[in-house]
């Protein structure tokens, strides 16, 4: 717009965000760790580290490794548990910081229980269900890898909470559209994608996996084109809002997700190499909107122009 002011606010499935930039679960701690670097109210919000019913210790090292334009991680379930999250982590955050709680567990009823514990906690603007967890009952395959299991998970957590409910999808599936539709059908307010791609790397000196857990999750720029594909496919399949995640290093990357139909994005691995990445992405999106004469970020969302074959 001529006066150079643009509207970056979006409504993500009932959560009002000043701009479409959140931080991805597990890459931003519980938020307070980033307070030294920038004012967290300047971004849309943060998705906290996934929490379980009880505190968990996670895997033995090595837990991370670097790969080509990416990294592997197998942290395990390490987290402070829902009670400490509510009692200690949330109060540590400044007024006005929008917080989405992320939940993972090993059983569906435990997922639901964590959601119940979060009910009425004023600082929790929404809940994101991390469906990339191994489901013990179905032999270690991720909740998000089987439509029936995912449906049960969403149904149970939907019943357990009145807050805006987002389901974070696993990319390790044949058809992401099917998974997104399941979430929509079961009443989720939105889907977040993608979580990490299941991967493995090897040390040829020791002939051992680089991670103690053998398998790990691949994140970073390497996976961005896969994430963009899935976000675009999901946006064609469902009407609920999509939060785009995967390899976002800068504003240009984030804008690609918005163009592909994401209502908001989450910055993940980039926070490690640049603790101010999320702020810079938010500022860069605003600059892009101004430069391209778009008044509202919503004018950009889903504008991918597909050539007619």
């Amino acid at each position, binding site marked *: 717009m001529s006066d150079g002011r643009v509207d970056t606010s979006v409504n993500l499935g009932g959560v009002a965000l000043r701009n479409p930039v959140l931080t991805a679960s*597990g*890459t*931003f*701690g519980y938020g307070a*760790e*980033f307070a*030294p*670097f920038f004012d967290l109210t300047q971004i849309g919000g943060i998705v906290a*580290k996934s929490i379980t019913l009880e505190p968990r*210790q*996670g*895997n*033995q*090292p*090595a*837990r*991370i*490794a*670097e*790969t*080509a*334009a*990416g*990294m592997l*991680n197998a*942290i395990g379930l*390490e987290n402070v548990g829902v009670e400490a999250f509510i009692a200690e982590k949330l109060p540590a955050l400044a007024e006005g910081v929008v917080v989405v709680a992320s939940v993972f567990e090993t059983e569906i009823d435990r997922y639901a229980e964590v959601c119940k514990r979060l009910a009425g906690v004023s600082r929790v603007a929404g809940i994101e269900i991390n469906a990339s967890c191994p489901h013990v009952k179905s032999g270690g395959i991720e909740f998000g890898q089987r439509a029936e299991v995912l449906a049960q998970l969403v149904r149970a957590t939907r019943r357990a909470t009145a807050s805006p409910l987002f389901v974070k999808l696993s990319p390790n599936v044949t058809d992401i559209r099917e998974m997104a539709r399941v979430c929509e059908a079961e009443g989720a307010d939105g889907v977040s994608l993608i979580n990490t791609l299941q991967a493995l790397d090897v040390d040829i000196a020791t002939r051992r996996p680089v991670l*103690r857990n053998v398998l790990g999750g691949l994140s*970073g*720029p390497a996976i961005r084109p896969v994430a963009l594909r899935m976000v675009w496919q999901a946006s064609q399949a469902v009407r609920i809002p999509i939060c785009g995640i995967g390899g976002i*290093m*800068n504003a240009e990357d984030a804008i690609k997700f918005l163009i592909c139909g994401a209502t908001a994005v989450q910055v993940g*691995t980039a*926070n*490690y*190499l*640049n*603790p*101010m990445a999320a702020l810079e992405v938010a500022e860069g999106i605003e600059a892009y909107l101004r430069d391209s004469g778009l008044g509202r970020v919503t004018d950009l969302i889903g504008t991918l122009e597909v050539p007619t074959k």
Partner: protein
Amino acid sequence: MNADTALPLRVDAPVLANRSEGGANYRLRLGVAGWPGAAPGHFVMLSPGARGAALRFDPLLPRPMAVYRTLGTTASPEIEVLYKATGRGTQLLAEARVGDFVRVVGPLGIPFSLPEAGRAALLVGGGTGIASLYELAACAAARGPVVVMLGARNADDLMGCDDFAALGVEVRIATEDGSRGHRGRVTEMLEAALVGERSGEIIYACGPTPMMRRAAEIAAARGRSCQVSLENHMACGFGVCLGCAVPRADGKIALVCRDGPVFDATHVDWAGVP
């Protein structure tokens, strides 16, 4: 202000100097606007090439590096880093020229606790770990007698010996090939030194895990207290990725970047250190 509790900052720092010091060793000087100062044991995360004209995301992760020492003026603070160009990231760092920018996040970690006044200190450093001990040697020397034992594969591999000597502390050197100083491991020197010598020294060790582990065993056997600074793979350096875990003696998990890198050697479950 107190460097021990300094909040970390993120600065894209101009390279003021980046010279080879023989072997794989390099000395990097960075201008770090707003640098709050650092205590011995503090480290920074450096992203090589992050600010080159060409955006590069391979290698992706920043590299943890000890603050070798703080230089410059309060108005324009500088930090010096001594590093070995061995892998992809540090080799890229070695290509940084004066005028390039390197992203710095720091100061990070919990520093060494210094010896009480009058207490003797024995510093044992190996490989890249030597770089974590220089500021410690300087501070400890102001409080009591300091002996620094530096170990390396060979003379070329040694870092910063002259700097330590210039502090006026006693420097003893061990190389595995005997090309300089004692032929053998620095921990053998440590063991020998503790025999008969007046007791009560506090031991500080930083280097390869086997070296630190051995130093911890020796200290325990001789009833000396020992602090180690662990060198672990890190993605963030400030406690959010949970990647730098090490098992503690009590069975719990510690984060090297947040709960360390300095630990009381008896608190570490050495068998589980990667």
